[in-house]
């Protein structure tokens, strides 16, 4: 963009400025990102002189998609405002969904309780005290019928945050749709279905890695044939970041997981262009504004390049990294909780400027409990303010060409590539999980971050600066009634009496045979679901066949 004569002139000028800068008043502290990376005080065309526009930046909707996956981005359609939600009983969750849809939410996102996430029924001894607390309790198809009561599944897209038992919840969703007269071929939505990040970060696993990967490839294979509009997997960096990872680690480990899924499906014999267009991603939006924007832009570019060059994708759709974003839960503070509204707004804005396809904004009260209705409404309004008042949607990828943002994008790409090499050297993603490599890297980053706060190297408003002594917290909190667990267990007991238990046994036996062999588990699970077998019963069958995973201690 500059000829050599101009560059020479510029270099001279910059040198002069750097001298002046060194001699001006400077705070004696490090200027670091939230990932503890130092940044320069100024970026200029000299940082961009070797960057080829077509190769690194280009146009929206065109390879390498740095600027966004669609040609028209938010001029065509605003992102999907999708608040993650679910609590208590199926009925209570259904009421919250109707409330959110009434207030302009455009897609659903189901949060399940811990027993559901871990594949236990509500009356299991491990479920005691956990039913309906951090999400909705689902034991059987009955619960899912209530959750989606009055919600037309042919019009609404639904994301379900479920991993180890993912195929069971997918089957239940398909079965609810059947009852509404909606064929699975037209269903839209996403199952998170990302077990690798569970081993790495969130720790909600049931089975060992090999059968877990098989379950995922089974779902990819099934959906490719029968539920073609379904996002089979949401490859998630969110939890990796929440566990303490830096932006570069989030980016690198998430994409490495993505490559592992692609390789597993190819190994099954699938054509990359048949399944890759339905892979989706999920990133965190943390507080460091420009670092986050660089992360999203780098992610799209790396994914497109790998899909094309390494995995031989020919369909451009296979190269698109479409992603959901959620603001960083770990950035919220218990102190002065109203400040969390502001934090969330900045984070959400970085997701939008980074070109997200859908967005969840956290509520201010989430360091205390699940969000109250009022807090959720403010969080949703934050997205609407960004979309309709700030003007940031008018221009596509408006920060492209910023010397700083482009340098940040390149830096994150380089850091991710270095991690890919390291992971490969260590024997691949699953080997790294079993060796605790990711877990150690993340725990170290989390500890360094905490130390920086305690040393005062990093200011957290209301926590280590601008503290209010004797602060009284006055925000209304949501409480889950203990009665939910009692009711849920009673309903379950009733279900077990009233259903056709011969059909349950027959379908569960079939599931066992399929699990022991190498058939596709999704169809067998669908049969169990239709017979009202419970989630715990299905998971138990697979536990008996495959065993359970235990983590090697890293501390």
């Amino acid at each position, binding site marked *: 963009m500059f000829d050599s004569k101009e560059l020479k002139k510029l270099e001279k000028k910059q040198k002069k400025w750097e001298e002046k800068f060194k001699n001006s008043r400077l705070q004696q502290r490090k200027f670091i990102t939230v990932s503890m990376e130092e940044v320069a005080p100024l970026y200029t065309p000299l940082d961009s002189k070797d960057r080829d526009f077509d190769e690194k930046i280009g146009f929206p909707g065109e390879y390498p998609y740095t600027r966004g996956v669609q040609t028209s981005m938010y001029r065509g359609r605003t992102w999907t405002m999708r608040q993650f939600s679910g609590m208590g009983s199926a009925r209570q969750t259904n009421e919250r969904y109707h409330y959110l849809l009434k207030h302009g939410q455009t897609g659903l996102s189901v949060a399940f309780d*811990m027993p559901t996430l871990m594949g236990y029924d509500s009356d299991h001894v491990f479920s005691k005290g956990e039913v309906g*607390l951090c999400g909705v309790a689902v034991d059987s198809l009955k619960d899912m019928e209530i959750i989606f009561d009055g919600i037309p599944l042919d019009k609404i897209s639904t994301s379900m945050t479920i991993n180890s038992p993912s195929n069971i919840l997918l089957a239940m969703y398909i079965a609810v749709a059947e009852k509404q007269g909606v064929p699975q071929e037209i269903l839209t939505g996403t199952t998170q279905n990302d077990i690798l990040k569970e081993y790495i970060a969130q720790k909600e696993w049931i089975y060992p890695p090999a059968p877990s990967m098989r379950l995922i490839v089974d779902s990819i294979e099934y959906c490719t044939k029968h539920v073609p509009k379904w996002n089979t997997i949401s490859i998630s960096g969110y939890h990796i970041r929440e566990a303490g990872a830096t932006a570069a680690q989030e980016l690198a480990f998430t994409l490495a997981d993505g490559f592992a899924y692609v390789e597993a499906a190819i190994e099954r014999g699938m054509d990359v262009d048949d399944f890759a267009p339905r892979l989706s991603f999920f990133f965190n939006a943390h507080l460091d504004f420009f670092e986050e924007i660089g992360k999203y832009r780098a992610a799209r570019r790396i994914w497109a390049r790998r899909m094309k060059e390494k995995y031989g994708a020919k369909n451009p759709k296979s190269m698109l990294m479409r992603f959901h974003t959620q603001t960083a839960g770990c950035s919220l503070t218990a*102190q002065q909780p109203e400040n969390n509204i502001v934090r969330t707004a900045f984070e959400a804005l970085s997701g939008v400027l980074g070109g997200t396809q859908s967005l969840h904004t956290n509520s201010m009260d989430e360091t205390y409990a699940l969000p109250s209705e009022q807090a959720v409404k403010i969080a949703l309004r934050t997205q609407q303010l960004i979309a309709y008042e700030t003007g940031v949607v008018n221009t596509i990828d408006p920060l492209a060409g910023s010397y700083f943002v482009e340098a940040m994008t390149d830096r994150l790409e380089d850091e991710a590539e270095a991690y890919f090499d390291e992971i490969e050297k260590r024997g691949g993603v699953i080997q790294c999980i079993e060796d605790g490599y990711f877990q150690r890297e993340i725990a170290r980053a989390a500890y360094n971050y905490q130390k920086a706060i305690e040393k005062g190297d990093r200011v957290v408003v209301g926590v280590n600066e601008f503290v209010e002594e004797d602060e009284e917290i006055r925000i209304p909190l949501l409480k889950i009634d203990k009665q939910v667990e009692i009711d849920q267990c009673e309903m379950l007991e009733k279900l077990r009496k009233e259903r056709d238990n011969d059909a349950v046994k027959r379908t569960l036996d079939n599931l066992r045979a399929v699990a022991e062999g190498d058939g596709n588990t999704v169809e067998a699970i669908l049969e169990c679901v239709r017979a009202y077998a419970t989630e715990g019963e299905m998971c138990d069958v697979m536990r008996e066949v495959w065993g359970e995973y235990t983590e090697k201690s890293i501390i």
Partner: protein
Amino acid sequence: MERKIRILLAKPGLDGHDRGIKVIANSFRDAGIETIYAGLRQTPETIVEAAIQEDVDAIGLSILSGAHMTLFPAVLKLLKERGADDILLFGGGIIPEEDIEELNKMGVGRLFTPGTPTSEIVEYVKSKIEKE
């Protein structure tokens, strides 16, 4: 010779969010406290058993799933039954103020919410144990 303070940290219940407890474990160790991290998915029974076997001065539990009103009282009850209620039980997580007050009344020590400096937690345990 003065005996070092020994503590047991654990995550009871199904919740797998272990960022906080690992950070705390490192902080305790850096402060010279012998720290055993029992890991994920511990039941009240295994926690109390380990605490007695390891002869610890305190148990720290981390719960982010909302199950605190079941799990803290369960551990407390078992400690009493085993005559080990001299062991300090404290913890942290996503816990509303109201519940903290109720648990404190039952005899649970301090419960720390997000944003607490780890030094405050270490100091708390040191002062409680050394006083005794």
